[in-house]
């Protein structure tokens, strides 16, 4: 049989679906898109003997009938008629809720395989299963696994093979929903079969969906003629039993499940209080929950910045050596523009991005750890009260935290927020979480203008301003643009687990890859463009005769140091003149008009253009404009240049502006994708730009008026 079989992986969130997916598909196979959280359609390949399998990891869902986007996607995939086998992953230590989905999957009457995952937890809790009975009951073979340790995977693969080859076929489940409902289902199914003989899934499934008034099914034109009959049945049932059909069927399903469990699941230990409960009584306590949470957050940041530091130094050195090596081996005369492009433009630009890779890696690692243990849902629980007051959602918290690393995965992570209004609000304010790209800017400016003892404080103030603005803006948005009632919020708090190192790395890498992708493409392209607009057009007729002056200095009788100094100054002046003439310079001059009220001159304005593409480029661009070759934030010459040209107040305003202003190109692109609206994307970009200007304006004018920060603090 030489064709590709399609296997769907279904199950509740927290059932360990993705781990099993990774085991089956070898490496972490993501097709294309940013993975974010498991909402995107993920598929991978697997080979079992001579069988080719395409495995689709469906979003984690609790049911096929609710109206969330994930559930719609999953239902669509399963109803397509192209699925050959369903792997239903259940947490066998928490069976009842997980089996709710199973009852619906069974009604599809497609080959079904139940994977009783977390078998170790089930055993520890004293569960004993009568697998034969359960298999007969659900019409599906059962395989035990411990996904986190890879146990049972081989058995799983074997069973899948057998099923696909037709060697293992169990009679389908026969559920009863009560005499009345059964009759109605039967009736509708027959009608469906007559009217639409070529349905991809058994008519019984659609009959049930019609009775439940499933939004998607009911909207399909081919089912229109059957709607009246379905409506009539619904009305009859409600009249007789006093509940609506959906509630009734849900009741029935849980009844079916508890019936099955009563027969086939025994619990030998009766440990009511589990470790998870004990931990939760502290971690989610009404009084200690928040302080503990804040402490954990503090540790995360400590971890991110402290532990990453040595690695940052390493990478910096690496890039510097690279740049020096090229400068040494590439003669200045041969294609000087390209040489400069490579060294200053590309290595300078991309280098400044990658330097912060360790920070990002560590932050994402910490977050992956918190997610893997299950603490993140507790964090959302604890933070919800506070976030709610600002119009945000408890689940907004993780995306905002990710925003401190990079806005791109942060915006992707908002997919977990079901309420569209809350989701959009969160997306709009994420750029205010000072991302790692802005760190070079702070790292350059703060030491240039503030004495050592104030440096950390100023950094904190900037971050804090970002957070405060985000919360205020969120509150504003929620009461105006995104006004609306809250939707029902139910969230499961999974039992605490210790994640495996491998799964941590995979999750950390998923998000880091997004960051690198951005660096590799956008920033590279932007660096090149920026270099070009800073170089061209080349001024041919210069104001000063630099060549002549150079000669004069060299031939003069000055001491070598004095000569070198004068030559350097001359070179700087020459570069400056060329720069002013270039496109970048002219744009800067043009922008200066608007930016002077906030204290920016043409150089800063010009550097801001670079910042639009990617915030990190602000520093390298500023370096170019001050004729400091391959400048980075550690650059003493650049810092000196800044000190000589600006006041601390201006420095602060520059940082403030960069904090608030519109997000980088990559973020804008992702926001457009996730909000599906140009209006909102532009609103965010322009809104933040205007807000940034206003904030800097207020601070600068007020500061100038009050004579604050016009002199170096503590100098």
């Amino acid at each position, binding site marked *: 049989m030489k064709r590709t079989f399609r296997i769907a992986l279904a199950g509740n969130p927290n059932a360990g679906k993705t781990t099993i997916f990774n085991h089956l598909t070898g490496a972490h196979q993501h097709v294309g898109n940013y993975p974010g959280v498991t909402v995107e359609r993920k598929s991978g390949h697997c080979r079992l003997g001579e069988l080719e399998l395409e495995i689709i990891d469906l979003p984690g869902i609790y049911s096929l009938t*609710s109206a969330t986007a994930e559930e719609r996607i999953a239902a669509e995939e399963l109803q397509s008629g192209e699925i050959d086998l369903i792997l239903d992953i259940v947490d066998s230590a928490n069976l009842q809720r997980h089996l709710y989905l199973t009852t619906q999957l069974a009604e599809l009457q497609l080959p079904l395989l139940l994977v009783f995952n977390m078998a170790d937890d089930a055993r520890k809790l004293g569960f004993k299963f009568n697998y034969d009975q359960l298999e007969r009951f659900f019409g599906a073979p059962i395989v035990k696994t411990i996904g986190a340790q890879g146990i049972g995977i081989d058995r799983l693969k074997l069973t899948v093979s057998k099923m696909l080859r037709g060697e293992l076929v169990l009679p389908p489940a026969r559920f009863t929903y009560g005499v009345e409902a059964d009759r109605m289902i039967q009736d509708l199914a027959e009608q469906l079969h007559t009217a639409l003989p070529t349905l991809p899934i058994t008519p019984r499934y659609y009959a049930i969906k019609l009775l439940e008034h499933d939004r998607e099914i009911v909207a399909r034109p081919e089912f229109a003629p059957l709607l009246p009959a379905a409506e009539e049945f619904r009305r009859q049932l409600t009249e007789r039993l006093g509940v609506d059909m959906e509630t009734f069927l*849900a009741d029935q399903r849980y009844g079916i499940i508890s019936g099955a469990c009563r027969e086939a699941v025994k619990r030998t230990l009766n440990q009511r209080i589990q470790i998870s409960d004990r931990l939760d009584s502290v971690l989610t306590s009404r009084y200690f929950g928040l302080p503990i949470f804040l402490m954990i957050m503090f540790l995360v940041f400590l971890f991110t910045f402290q532990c990453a530091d040595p690695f940052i130094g390493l990478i910096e050195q690496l890039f510097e050596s690279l740049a020096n090596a090229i400068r040494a081996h590439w003669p200045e005369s041969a294609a000087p523009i390209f040489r400069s492009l490579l060294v200053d433009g590309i290595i300078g630009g991309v280098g400044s991005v990658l330097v912060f890779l360790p920070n990002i890696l560590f932050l994402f690692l910490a977050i992956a750890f918190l997610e893997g243990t299950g603490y993140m849902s507790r964090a959302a629980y604890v933070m*919800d009260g506070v976030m709610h007051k600002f119009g945000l959602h408890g689940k907004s918290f993780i995306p905002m935290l990710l925003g401190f690393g990079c806005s791109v995965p942060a915006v992707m992570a908002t997919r977990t927020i079901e309420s569209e209004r809350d989701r959009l609000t969160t997306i709009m304010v994420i750029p205010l979480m000072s991302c790692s790209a802005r760190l070079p800017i702070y790292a350059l400016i703060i030491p240039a203008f503030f004495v050592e003892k104030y440096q950390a404080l100023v950094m904190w103030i900037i971050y804090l301003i970002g957070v405060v603005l985000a919360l205020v803006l969120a509150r504003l948005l929620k009461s105006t643009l995104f006004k609306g009632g809250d939707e029902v919020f139910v969230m499961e708090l999974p039992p605490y687990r210790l994640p495996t190192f491998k799964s941590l790395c995979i999750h950390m890498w998923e998000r880091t890859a997004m960051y690198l992708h951005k660096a590799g493409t956008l920033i590279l392209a932007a660096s090149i463009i920026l270099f070009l607009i800073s170089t061209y057009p080349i001024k041919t007729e210069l104001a000063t005769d630099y060549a002549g002056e150079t000669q004069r200095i060299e031939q003069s009788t000055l001491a070598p140091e004095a000569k070198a100094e004068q030559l350097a100054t001359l070179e700087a002046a020459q570069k400056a003149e060329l720069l002013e003439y270039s496109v970048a310079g002219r744009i800067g001059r043009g922008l200066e008009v608007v930016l002077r009220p906030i204290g920016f001159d043409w150089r800063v304005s010009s550097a801001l253009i670079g910042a639009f593409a990617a915030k990190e480029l602000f520093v390298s661009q500023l370096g170019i404009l001050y004729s400091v070759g391959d400048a980075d934030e550690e650059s003493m010459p650049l810092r000196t240049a800044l000190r000589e040209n600006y006041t601390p107040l201006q420095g602060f305003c520059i940082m403030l502006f960069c904090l608030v202003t519109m997000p980088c190109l990559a973020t804008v692109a992702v926001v457009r994708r996730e909000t599906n609206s140009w209006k909102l994307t532009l609103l965010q970009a322009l809104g933040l730009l205007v807000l940034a200007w206003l904030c800097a304006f207020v601070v600068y004018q007020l500061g100038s008026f009050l004579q604050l920060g016009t002199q170096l603090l503590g100098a």
Partner: protein
Amino acid sequence: MAENNISSSLEDYLEAIAEITADNGHAHTKDIAERLKVKMPSVTNALRQLAGRGLIHYESHAPVVLTPAGEARAAAVQQRHTTLQNFFRDVLKVDEQSASDCACKIEHVIGEEVRQRVAVLARAIAERPDCAELRRYLEETMPGIHASQENLLCTLDQLQPGQRGLVTRVDEKLPGARRLTVMGLIKNAEVEMEGRAPFGDLLRLKLLGSSITLRAGDAEHVLVKPV
């Protein structure tokens, strides 16, 4: 003398006036307002009505004085209050404050005949020798009887941490009620309240073996029977 019906609220005013007069010799509108914890305009209004019924002498800027009819009426109310309060305190062994509060409410509706019989009952229980065992029994059992939650339905958000309950009904009108049902919040499901989040809007419950969180506002739409 005709027992013209006056409202309970007016009876309270009479009672208050009588008490204040007994304490101070006369009653000013200010004192009445303070004792009954009402605003001056309400007092003025009530006094006008009482004056209209001939129960008080009321002139502005002068202290309020009960007419003989008013005095008699006030005495009657006080007597009802006392009988009831004593009954609650001495027979039902209710604490002084609760006895008084309860008496304050019932005193307006209990008729004279019933009051007299209650008084006789109370005296009989307190004094008759053949009631000695009854007295002992009341002494023992009454203090131990408290308002129990048994068989009292409440909404899910009213459960106390550590308390368990059986779901009776999920309000179908709640938008998104479906999500609750899917998670297992159905009729006869057993839930255990585990705690509340800081700033109290989220609840943590144990349902079907694992914890879920729910907004207090949504939990109000779920009826449970505490067990």
